[in-house]
């Protein structure tokens, strides 16, 4: 794999101006919440960076994550950086097939022992190794073999990060996430279905710039991108605070851009960069286009009830249960009341009346 050219030289040869490159570095610094004084450091480090070897493993996935990352409109600098990592193995993108492809993976592992990055999209089935295989090797075996010599693992997408849709109830393949299996290497979860492209380039930039892993949240996601909820960064938040809601997708409120909470928006529970980084070169994002957030970057989002009901709504048939409870309450109350009355009637019956003659002489 060609290691000779630095990233700076490659960007230059692709006609990226110094100004454009620095703008990217500034954007990266602000996305990662770094002070402006870090911009030159990022630029210097990125320019000098050699192509890191990346092995991309695709397991139980839909290729949406790869689509998201590769179809970010070229030539963005994010795209170029992504192009200029040495992607030594990727089913969907590589020309080689069969034995040649597997040989490329093994060669990359050998040449870059301890230094290469493993990117995984898709969950790993444990129910039966035959559910998903590549070149006759089960996903779990390939993951373990490839990760053994890696520097770090980046789990791209919700399937790799948390199991995703394959992991949804009743999880027929016994799907698990990368972090369920990889315990001895750093795992960075870049969740989302699919994840925001700039998030993965941001993570790669940090790795190239500082040689360190980003600070992670409790779900192993880079805090710089997953530190705040969609709800807290949503431009429709003022409408939520004012109590102005769209009731349907085509009513007056929807046309005026009011909050989509009543239409089931999961923004309050979802941590992701959509509201700030947006999609398609900053064109729009789901909430801006009029649909509530599905919460796709959160674990088990598929099992969180209806996409069109808010998160706190009970999942059971509450009206039916309440009906039964009322009937049971009435029955119990009536029974207890009847028992009390019978007890009182019994007490009255047993009561012996005393008159003055019964009191006798001993009273006086």
């Amino acid at each position, binding site marked *: 794999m060609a290691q000779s050219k630095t990233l700076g030289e490659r960007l230059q040869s692709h006609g990226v101006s110094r100004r454009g490159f620095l703008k990217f570095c500034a954007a990266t610094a602000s996305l990662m919440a770094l002070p402006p004084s870090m911009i030159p450091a990022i630029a210097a480090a990125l320019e000098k960076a050699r192509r890191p070897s990346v092995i991309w493993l695709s397991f139980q996935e839909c290729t949406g994550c790869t689509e998201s990352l590769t179809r970010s409109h070229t030539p963005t600098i994010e795209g170029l950086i992504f192009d200029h990592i040495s992607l030594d193995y990727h089913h969907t993108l590589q020309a080689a097939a069969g034995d040649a492809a597997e040989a490329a993976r093994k060669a990359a592992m050998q040449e870059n022992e301890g230094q290469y990055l493993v990117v995984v999209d898709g969950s790993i089935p444990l129910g039966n190794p035959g559910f998903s295989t590549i070149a006759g090797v089960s996903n779990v075996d390939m993951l373990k073999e490839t990760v053994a010599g890696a520097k770090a693992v980046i789990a791209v997408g919700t399937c790799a990060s948390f199991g995703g849709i394959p992991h949804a109830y009743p999880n027929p393949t016994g799907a698990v996430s990368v972090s369920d299996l990889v315990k001895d290497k750093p795992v960075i979860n870049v969740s989302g279905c699919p994840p925001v492209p700039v998030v993965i380039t941001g993570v790669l930039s940090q790795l190239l710039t500082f040689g360190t892993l980003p600070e992670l*949240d*409790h*779900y192993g996601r880079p805090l710089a991108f997953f530190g705040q*909820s969609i709800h*807290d960064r949503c431009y429709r938040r003022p409408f*939520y*605070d*004012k*109590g102005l*809601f769209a009731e349907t997708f085509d009513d007056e409120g929807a046309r005026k851009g009011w909050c989509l*909470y*009543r239409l089931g928006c999961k923004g*309050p*529970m979802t*941590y992701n960069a959509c509201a700030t980084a947006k999609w398609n070169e900053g064109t729009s994002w789901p909430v801006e286009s009029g649909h509530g957030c599905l919460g796709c970057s*959160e*674990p*088990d*989002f598929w*099992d*969180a*009830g209806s996409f069109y*009901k*808010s*998160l*706190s*709504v*009970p*999942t*059971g048939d*509450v*009206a039916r*249960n*309440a009906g*039964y*409870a*009322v009937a*049971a*309450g*009435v029955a*119990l*109350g*009536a029974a*207890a*009341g*009847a028992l*009390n*009355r019978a007890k009182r009637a019994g007490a009255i019956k047993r009561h012996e009346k005393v008159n003055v003659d019964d009191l006798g002489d001993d009273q006086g």
Partner: protein
Amino acid sequence: MDLLAWVRGPAFDAALAIFIVGVIWRLIELLMLGRGVSLAEPRGPEFPAGLRTIVLRSWPSAAKLKTGATTLVLGYGFHIGFFVGLLLFVPHIELVHATFGLRWPGLPTPLVDAATVVGIVALLAALAHRLSHPVIRFLSTSQDYLVWVATLLPLVTGYLAFHRIVNPYPLALSIHILCVELLMVIFPFTKLMHAFTLFIARWYNGAIAGRRGVQS
């Protein structure tokens, strides 16, 4: 998310069942106890006097302010804060709408937020008052403290969840819902039942006074 699924699912169903069964059971049992037949000639009608007492006892008066200002102010502060938070917070209205189909207008969240803080502060002050006043302290049972904790928890956990002080959010929300479920479960079997019985009690007091022809 597993915890959230549980508190929204089986736990909520169980808590709601206990709440409804318990409240209706106790109300019917109480009402079926009835009142002894009075053989005396009534000196006035029961109905207007009963209504009058329900209104009068719910309204702060100068006399009450003089004898128990702390209890009055804290009582109103807490109850208003609690009910504004419970009934006028938009996600709560949404919950009722999604489950029972009823809906009413909510308040802007900053106002609900402020009311919640008033409720929390009033509850804390009420505890301080309870502990510092020798008579109230003597009269307090462990149930009073249990009820105090169970009432405070939904307010505090709701505040923490809304302001994202506890993370991740689904955990904060789960704890909040769980605290509300605890409140629902103990509700029918503690003094919390006063929410339903106070108007009955006030009616009885007023009606008895009306029948005797005296002011209640």
